[in-house]
């Protein structure tokens, strides 16, 4: 289940990034405004870019971890499965 969610996230991230970095949405940040003396367009573009790679890093870690979990050998059945010890 977790693996599937991660897979979906791995698809959603680049698609979302693609939308943000392509025309109609790009226009949103093209305002005549400045932040710390830098045009808002630049600040927002690079901030989003950084956010994207940050999320990508998180996702990559999770994906690798999930894959490792997947590849680890099948665990021995739980101790509960064993017949209860006969005490008497």
């Amino acid at each position: 289940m977790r693996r599937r969610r991660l897979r979906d996230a791995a698809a959603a991230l680049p698609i979302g990034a693609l939308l943000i970095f392509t025309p109609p949405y790009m226009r949103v940040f093209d305002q005549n405004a400045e932040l710390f003396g830098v045009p808002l367009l630049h600040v927002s573009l690079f901030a989003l870019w950084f956010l994207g790679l940050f999320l990508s890093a998180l996702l990559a870690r999770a994906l690798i971890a999930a894959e490792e979990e997947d590849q680890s050998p099948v665990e021995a059945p739980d101790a509960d499965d064993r017949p209860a010890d006969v005490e008497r």
Partner: protein
Amino acid sequence: MLTTGVIILIAGLYLGGLFLLAFWSERRAARGRGGFISSPLVYTLSLAVYCTSWTFYGAVGSASRSGLEFLTIYLGPTLVVMAWWFLLRKLVRISKAQRITSIADFISARYGKSASISALVTIVSVAVVAPYIALQLKAVAASVDALAGLHQAATVDVHGRSILADTGFWVAVCMAVFTILFGTRNQSADERQPGVVAAIAFESIVKLLSLGAIAVFAIYGMNSGLGELFDRADWHEGVQRLTTLQEDFETRWLVTLFLSAAAFICLPRQFHVGIVENTNERHLATASWMFPLYLLLVSLFVIPIAISGMTQLPETVNPDLYVLMVPQSAGQTELALIAFIGGLSAATSMVIVSSIAMSIMISNHLVTPLLLRLSVFSQQRTADFSKVLILVRRLSIIAILSLGFIYYYSIGTTSPLASIGLISFAGVAQFLPALIGGVYWEGGTKSGALTGLIAGFALWTYTLLVPSFAGAGWGFISVLDEGPFGIALLQPDALFGLAGWDPLVHGLTWSLTANVILYVAVSLFSRQSPLERLQSAVFINAFDRSRTGVEGAIPRSAAPEDLFRLARRILGRERADQLFADYAKSRGVERRADLPATDPALIVYVERALAGSIGAASARSLVARIAKGETISLESVIQILDETQEAIRYSRELEKKSRELEKTARQLREANAQLTELDRMKDDFLSRVSHELRTPMTSIRSFSEMLVEQGAEGGAAALEGEQAQRFLSIIQHESVRLTRLLDQILDLNRMENGQLDWELQEVDLADIAREAAETMRGLAQNGDVALIDGLGDARLPVLADPDRLKQVFVNLLSNAIKFNDAAERGGAAKVWLELERRPAGSGGAVCAVAIRDNGPGVPPAEQQTLFSKFSRGWKEGSRRPTGSGLGLAISKQIMLQFGGELLMTASSPAGSSFAVRLPHAERALQAAQTDAAPETGPEAGPEAAPEAAAE
């Protein structure tokens, strides 16, 4: 101002340093310390070969000319690596499985290992890469001239200079030598060349740092900070362009974004570093954020340099040279030199990797297929082909660099850097439909891919290359102006009347549209050959582990000896020996000669290994010559694929079943072990009981016989009454013992079956314990054991049968006294009777008394079976004072009947401790009332524990 000589000297020193670095890395790797070469960081840095001098100089130029559009060149690859899980990972997985050597090899392997496709892709690549290499040489030459103050306006004018005086020529020569020395060590493409990798990674760092240094200088050296820098936007049109989006930037934005994304996969050098040389899929995960970070930094550095260049340098300066001219104009010669070194790094790293990738492609897909057709190489007993292969690689490097140089030398001054780069990108983007379709669409056929590629490439040449040639003054002017043969409708830059478009958008739209449409349409109307069918299944289901071995299922046969000879011819003796030794080992066979005569898996294995050296198509044709076998039919391939599917499902089911069986078997085994143990104990018990019964029986019998004999002899020698009396009392004593034993056995048995129903009454556990202690005091005195009553005046009301409960204490005390050997060990034997510290979690609802001694303790081996009726007393060889040996077993049963427990809480050679625990009387009553009701929690009951018990 620096002179050309000094600049070239510095460049020479830098390249010399690069040689040393490569040499040192090779030495390290040879000594087995090249681990850093295969780190994810180095992998990411090698991806950064994407940033060529086109980035280094051209991005600033592009930013100055057309504003923010330059960002798309870096956003495209960012998006591609972010989607690594779906595309790059799959490409890497397939390439590892198929031992892919290049992008041409990849596409050809997907479409039935077609030699024509790999040759076509190689030719296209040469046509695309040669101008790109020319671009790098041009950038270096231009930067030398700019630094020396020769040209600031034009890029570079090489005409009227001898070749030997040309910086570009020397750079090309240097790179050829470097690549030949360090780039052709290994014959197979997927083995890393440590020298080259180290050099590339190093150069990636150099170019980033150098660009960063110039950017910092542009902000704080040329301006007082970011504020001042961006204030210039208000009055400069160029800066305006860079800080806002243009009126109709959309089309070009989308097209360049797409082109850069496509190029990041399809450029031969990117495919080489990113896919072929990838040693570990995990590295992609790291690169998925680290590489975007690299690109982000590069883009970030470009902007201030561009603004500073536009606003603070004379308008005559070429924007492509701003990186150099910004520090140069401020008199910062050292900084300008750093910029120059950065540009040189960018150029040389691209040239090195490109020429390696191209040499592999040219030698594997153009030269090798031709050579193998020559009779010299096609015969079985010919010399080592591997040496020829290395030679071909080296010649290919010289050829591709010469081609680049010739292109550079003749194209001269025209075309800014960025436009050549984008035309190259558009050229390699033609591989994209066949590549993406190849890994996601099972229906793509060889004919479709071939037609699409040819059409796309032709239109690319016509709509993009021809106008650029015309611009370079190589003719075609009339074609450009009036269309071929005067047909205006076919003008290269306004095909079918689509005038007024941006030339790049125009060219890419036409070429790629034709490419995709033909690829899909022809694929739909053509059939796949069996091998194509097989390969497409393997490529598309690359993550399906069980599918990878499908090829081995094709029934083919070849003598191992023939395969070995072939491998030796292509790979060289050493590697072939290694190859077969590995295979034999994996098959559990000692020697090559012991391999089975016909083994389809071996054929596939050898073919793969050959493919890693000479490409899939050539490897297939070589193996096909010696592998006799039927021609593969489509039906058989489909059957194999179906069978594999079936086999997978079947094996999964089997696996599940066998896991269940294993579980059942384990349970059975455990149950069996228990039964055997019980059986053994039963036997033991019976023999013990018989023995116990026999001893009193024997004495009864012998004494009674004596009495009978005496009686028969008459009064003559009649026994004296006194002796007869003694005999009778022995007989009586023994029969009492016998009866007691039998009673105990019966008791135990009934208790175990729950047949005894005692009247429980409220008694005081402590009182009973005291009574028992009094009873045992005599025995204790006899045995010199001090019996210490530590119960005080505690009251522990419980529900029990007082006699039975007393029996338990008597039994425990007698054991503690009888077995106590403290006196023998030179101490004072002691037995304590005391309140047990409240057992954890009982919450005062439990009354407990402990019997502790300083005797020898229970041996660990016997602790497990202490309370079973086959316990210590029954064991052979144990010190066994009187008693039936059933005592503890009976006691335990009694306690269980009362709803309490009897257990050994501690045992060590310093003594042992037993605990008698019973529920508090009120609790026990409550439990009895709500018998069938669910268990009441401890907090539901009253906290009625006596104060004493809490102590």
